[in-house]
């Protein structure tokens, strides 16, 4: 007997994905994507820190050797500004842009501070405690630390008296 009912084939279509399969696959891909992004971001951050550290070490070495050779009228010492001075101590500062060229305060990315503390004097020479530090004025994007200190050197120098250069 043929009833006037139209028979439909494949009422339940088994092709395609279920919602659970979709959620699992999209979730897995999202987690992997986040991981990949994190790895690349960390690499960029660490690469930036490496570059800054290498440049700071080179820059501080240059400053120490210039102080030793008393080259106050030449780079890098000629661009330092006197922050504070007394009979026994002095601090100087200078700012640089991202290419380590001298810059204005607005464009500055790095600051170098030098501190001299006079210990003793002998004839025209003096023994100084010298501390030099390089600070980054912007934080790294994977860190919340404000003004991170990139590199610091503390040493003692026995050099010609720098009172005249710094007008102590």
């Amino acid at each position, binding site marked *: 007997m043929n009833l006037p009912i139209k028979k439909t084939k494949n009422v339940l279509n088994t092709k395609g994905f279920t919602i659970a399969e979709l959620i699992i696959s999209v979730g897995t891909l999202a987690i992997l994507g986040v991981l990949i992004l994190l790895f690349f971001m960390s690499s960029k951050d660490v690469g930036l820190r490496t570059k800054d550290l*290498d440049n700071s070490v080179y820059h501080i070495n240059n400053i120490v050797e210039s102080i030793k050779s008393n080259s106050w009228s030449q780079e890098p010492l000629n661009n330092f500004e006197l922050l504070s001075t007394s009979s026994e101590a002095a601090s100087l500062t200078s700012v640089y842009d991202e290419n380590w060229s001298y810059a204005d305060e607005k464009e500055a990315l790095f600051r170098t501070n030098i501190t001299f503390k006079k210990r003793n004097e002998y004839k025209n020479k003096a023994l100084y405690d010298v501390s030099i530090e390089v600070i980054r004025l912007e934080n790294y994007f994977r860190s919340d630390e404000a003004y991170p200190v990139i590199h610091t050197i503390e040493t003692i120098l026995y050099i010609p008296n720098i009172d005249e250069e710094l007008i102590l």
Partner: protein
Amino acid sequence: MRYIKNKKGSSSILVVVTFTMLVIFSLLVMISSYSDYKLAQKNSENTEAYYKLSGQANEFWYDIESIISNNSSKNPEEIIKELYKYDSSVFVEINDNSLVISRTFFNNKNKELYIELLYNKNNKEIQLLALKEIPKEFEYEDIDFEDVEVINQ
């Protein structure tokens, strides 16, 4: 053969392979940049250690200069006694008209810094002869070098 001709699921394999490659490459990039950072940190620590030692040597230079100037009227033997009283590790070499004073400074990072000063008895001045880092011998661990055959011509 039926399964090979069936292209269903190939896009999933492509996505999985792409993501795996991306994870592997990002990991490699991260490891590489971390090793660079470690190397830069080692370099900065070495520089810091060098300048700490150099500071000790400069202090030594100042102390020697003041000891000698305070005892400049005394004979060389007495000056040497005063120097040994100040620092027993100091090494003094007596020449006709001069004294060569030297000392080596060490730190916990296996670094050595050598300073040599010359005291001229005639003009009673002290001159820095040498301030240098002593290179240290080291051996690579777990590295085998193959003997290279040298052909005599």
